[in-house]
């Protein structure tokens, strides 16, 4: 059963440097996500991943096309959609001078819910930091905390925007385990990433975006079979990074 249905989604912005012309940041993409899936959106910088997520989260207006989340149209039911999703943004800063417990209670209130802050902190392994301020946390701890904030409403779908960017391998593994646990408990997870290993390890299915278009979508295994079955280097077989580069080219994007 599909929990997310995206049809012909478009979003255009004025061209940087030339305000009169516009370009399609998201250029007519269509995909479905099933209940209980971990769905990864891969792409180079500027591919339209974050814009796509922001349209699904109600942060950005949809120019044309439609997006249904749990049967609700995002454009006309933005506030109802927000009730059932959890969102971790790339920027994870919070109000100053509040500790983790106070922030979680505040986020709970935004959903009109009394929350179990201890339970949430325990889930993301931050119980000993309950009286700490977010700025006192390490990068990995900050990311885990921002996932805790995204879980206050016990969402059906969790959106993670580049959750492991900038983390060291240990913190990254730790976060992967958290995502796996949440998914095992039944949560649908949509994430964007640059990290091929992450996509391959975590995702049931992967969509590869480039220049606003969806250029491929399949399970990691089938994508490798299809695009990178011939090893490019001395490895036994290609990996999902080979798939990525084969599809989006080797040119630097920023």
């Amino acid at each position, binding site marked *: 059963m599909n929990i997310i249905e995206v049809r012909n989604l478009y979003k255009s912005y004025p061209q940087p440097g030339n305000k009169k012309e516009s370009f399609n940041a998201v250029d007519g993409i269509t995909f479905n996500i099933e209940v209980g899936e971990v769905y990864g959106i891969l792409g180079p910088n500027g591919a339209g991943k974050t814009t796509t997520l922001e349209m699904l*989260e*109600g*942060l*950005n*207006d949809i120019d044309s096309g439609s997006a249904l989340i749990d049967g609700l149209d995002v454009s006309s039911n933005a*506030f*109802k959609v*927000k*009730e059932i*999703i959890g*969102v971790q*943004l*790339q*920027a*994870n*800063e*919070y*109000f*100053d*001078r*509040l500790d983790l417990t*106070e922030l979680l209670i*505040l*986020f709970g*209130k*935004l*959903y*009109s819910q009394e929350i179990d802050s201890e339970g949430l902190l325990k889930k993301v392994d931050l119980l000993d930091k309950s009286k700490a301020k977010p700025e006192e946390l390490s990068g990995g701890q900050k990311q885990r905390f921002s996932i805790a*904030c995204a879980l206050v*409403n016990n969402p059906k779908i969790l959106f993670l925007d580049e959750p492991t960017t900038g983390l060291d391998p240990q913190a990254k593994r730790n976060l992967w385990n958290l995502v796996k646990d949440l998914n095992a408990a039944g949560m649908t997870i949509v994430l964007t990433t640059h990290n091929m290993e992450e996509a391959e390890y975590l995702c049931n299915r992967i969509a590869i975006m480039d220049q606003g278009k969806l250029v491929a979508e399949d399970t990691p295994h089938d994508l490798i079979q299809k695009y990178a079955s011939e090893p490019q280097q001395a490895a036994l077989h290609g990996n999902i990074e080979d798939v990525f580069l084969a599809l989006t080219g080797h040119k630097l994007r920023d």
Partner: protein
Amino acid sequence: MYSLLLPGINLGIKMFTSLQLHLAKVFLKIFLRDRQSILFSLFFPLVFIGAFLFSGGESDPINLGLVNNSTNSVSKNFSELVTGDPLFNVTEGEESYLKEQLILGDQTAIIVIPENFDYLEKTGELRLLLDASQVRQLGAIKEALNTSLLSIERELRNVEPMFRLKIEDVKARPQRYIDFLLPGLLAFMLMNLSLAGSGFNIVEYRRRGILKRLFVTPIQPKDFIVSIVLARMAIVLVQISVVLGLAITLLDIRIVGSFYSLYGMVILGTVIFLCLGFCLGSIAKTQEAIRPMVSAFIFPQLILSGVFFPISSMPELMQPFAHALPLSVIATGLRDIANDGTSLLILNTTTLGIGIWIILSFIIVTKFFVWKEVAN
């Protein structure tokens, strides 16, 4: 009064949702944990009150040296009159000693009474030695000396003065500069606190992605704005009360009108400046842009709005503009209540001005504060 007030507060609280109240509490908590900003928002008005407290609100007497080379009754009479004038702080002594003090700046001027100081033979001549840098006080000194001389002359010639100037305040109350200044100062304080609470905070929250994070939750923009307004209102009311309380106890300020009107005016003023602050915060995209914008908003008003001196002392061409500024409307409103005892409920140009600014700021804020754009 207390028992009347409590149900009112209860009713007031019930008007707001639990989310709005919780969020307002959070904003208050954030503010209360920021000791520095509390201190600095009180610093300016407290320094003013302190300055007035130590100077007693009056200007200092002029230090005047007196050299009396004459011994007759006319000179004695004159020196007594000058010494008795509260405008002067008189030191009698030798000319050479007083001259040294004049050079050091300890004396502002020296009067030398000549040996044969008498009016009978010819007009008596007094010498006034001055420090040129103190010339701005010359007018006051000359005026007082002339008056003293005139009264001595009359006394000696046995003539009654033809005219006497009696100064009477039509409003029949003592008006000191601090009475004029304090309401303006309060208005200025509430403007700063409101702008900092809405304009600066919004830009800061947007820059750090905090608004975006809030916007992916089901919070309505209305809840966000109401809670900021509630929190700021509490902060403004407490700080205004602290300054007002100190002014009343230490400087013997009398509030002629009712406190209900005074606080009503404070609340309306805070609402106006919070709304205008939200607009500035929505227009300014960056922290770098909001600073000059707020300065451009504050400084002309600080100068033109009659906080420190009356608008009527300004060039005539500027007066209508000065009167229309929100700060001057609120400062005048507070002054009318504090000094003249008018009520917030009486319709006059000031209350009309307040009404217009409330409507105007509501229109502007609903036009400019677009949640989606502000959050992104």
